[in-house]
Structure formats: structure tokens, C-alpha cells
């Protein structure tokens, strides 16, 4: 349910939340999307085409709304960058990080872990700011160290991967991914998954 209560809380405060879901990828996503919509989230269907998706995202960001992406999975084509995850390269999609960098919007990782296995167990949500959306000072050894620059999308992606790695290390049984994830596993004598 992607911690739907968080969405409903934000919706109750007048904060509009958009969730990008590829409804064409899995029939089960339609049910999830319906549940999220009932909680006040707006669904942006990624299966309608990337350009349409991006224009919808732009509209939402222009109106200061929150846009959520599933950043730990997605198309393994287009703008992907290999970044190690637990020691093995993974192709990560750069799209969400390019969008954040392009629009200068704060970037926050959102993870949710169920604390315990009893029916009444609570969920612990962790929000970690990866970037506050402002330009940052250039490196001190730069010739122009007084100026500020927007971070590279790949830098933002690497921050996200480090955060996700930390979260998964703390709760390894709470992260799942049914898609081919690590690359170049063949021939190395071990299976990182």
C-alpha cells in the first residue's frame, strides 16, 4: 500500500501527492493505484508514454505538488547509470534525479519498514533529504569556488543508492525486487541476489 496513510495525511493537509506508476507493467498495479487514488493521491500513468508522463510531472511540480517515483526499479533502458549496490553494479534509471535537478526541487527518499510481524505491528517511515533543491557551493579546490552550481543528477542518484543500501542493510527482509537487478553476475561464481 506504499504506506498509504502518509499520503492520506498529506492529502488531508492540502498537499497534493502524485504517484508515478506504470499501470501497463502489472495488472496488480491498477488495484494499488485505485487504493492510492481513494486516499487522495493522483496517479500519473507511466505506460502512457514518457513524454506525456514528464509533462504531467512538470505540471505537478509547477503547482508545488509532491511527485513520487519508485526509484529502486524501473526501465533498464534510456538514461541508466551503473552504480554499485552492495558491491555489484546495478543499472539505475536517472530520470527522477534528472527531473529533480532540472527543476531544482527537493529530493527526499521514502522508505517504509514494518516493525514486527504481528497483525497490529506498526510501520516505520523514514524520510531522508537527499537534496534541498538549492544550488550548492562548488568544490573548494575549484578555480571558481565562490560560485554555486546545481548538483549533477548522477550525484543525486548516488546519494539515493547509498541511502537505500543503508536502509536495506538495516532491514534486509523488508526489501524485495522481483526484477533482474544486478548486472554482470554471470561468470563471477556467486549470486549476489
Amino acid at each position, binding site marked *: 500500500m506504499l504506506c498509504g496513510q502518509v499520503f492520506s495525511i498529506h492529502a488531508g493537509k492540502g498537499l497534493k501527492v502524485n504517484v508515478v506508476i506504470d499501470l501497463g507493467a502489472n495488472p496488480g498495479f491498477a488495484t494499488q493505484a485505485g487504493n492510492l487514488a481513494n486516499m487522495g493521491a493522483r496517479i500519473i500513468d507511466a505506460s502512457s508514454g*514518457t*513524454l506525456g508522463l514528464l509533462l504531467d510531472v512538470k505540471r505537478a511540480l509547477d503547482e508545488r505538488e509532491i511527485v513520487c517515483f519508485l526509484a529502486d526499479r524501473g526501465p533498464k533502458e534510456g538514461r541508466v547509470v551503473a552504480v554499485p549496490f552492495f558491491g555489484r553494479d546495478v543499472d539505475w534509471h536517472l530520470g527522477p534525479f534528472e527531473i529533480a535537478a*532540472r527543476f531544482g526541487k527537493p529530493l527526499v527518499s521514502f522508505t517504509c519498514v514494518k516493525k514486527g510481524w504481528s497483525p497490529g505491528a506498526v510501520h516505520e517511515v523514514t524520510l531522508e533529504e537527499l537534496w534541498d533543491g538549492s544550488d550548492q557551493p562548488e568544490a573548494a579546490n575549484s578555480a571558481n569556488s565562490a560560485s554555486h552550481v546545481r548538483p549533477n543528477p548522477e550525484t543525486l542518484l548516488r546519494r539515493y543508492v547509498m541511502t537505500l543500501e543503508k536502509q536495506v542493510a538495516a532491514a534486509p527482509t523488508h526489501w524485495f525486487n522481483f526484477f533482474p537487478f544486478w548486472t554482470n553476475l554471470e561468470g563471477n561464481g556467486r549470486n549476489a541476489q
Partner: protein
Amino acid sequence: MTLVTLQALKADLKKLVVDVANLTHVSPDDIKDDEPLFRDGLGLDSIDLLEIAVHLEKRYGLKVQNDDGGRRALSNLENLAQALHAHLSMAGRQASA
């Protein structure tokens, strides 16, 4: 408000496309009006087109929406220039009314 000609807009847009998509191997004059901007045409991807849409809004006040008109406008230079020309004409009429 002086109305910009369609030809002038096309020249401006071609330069914008080359700059935004960092097409180092393409000169603005090389871009054909009816050449698709996306993938098999000029080879732009959706993030490039989003960048163009952002520039159009900042420079001309044209908001490209996710509808048939918006997607058509971003299909090639001719359609983009036509959409922008229509937008500027309307803005000019409203300013002089």
C-alpha cells in the same frame, strides 16, 4: 507587441533544440522542419523535450500540456513553430485589446 514571423521562430527554435539537446554534430540549419524531434528523427529523448518545453515556457510563456496539442507541438519543428506562433499571436491580440 511586435509579432515574430514564423520563419524567425523556426530559426530561433532550431537553435534552441541544438543548444538544449547539446547536438554538437548538428547545425541549426541542418534541422528540417518536418524532421521528427524524438528518437528516430533528431534523436532527442523525452528529457530533452521536457527541457525544450521548460525553455518555451520561460522565454515565450507557452505552457505545453500533456494533451494531443502538446504532444503534436513537440513532434517536429514545423508543429512547434506553428503552436508557438499561434500562442504569440493570441498573446499579442490580448495585449492590444
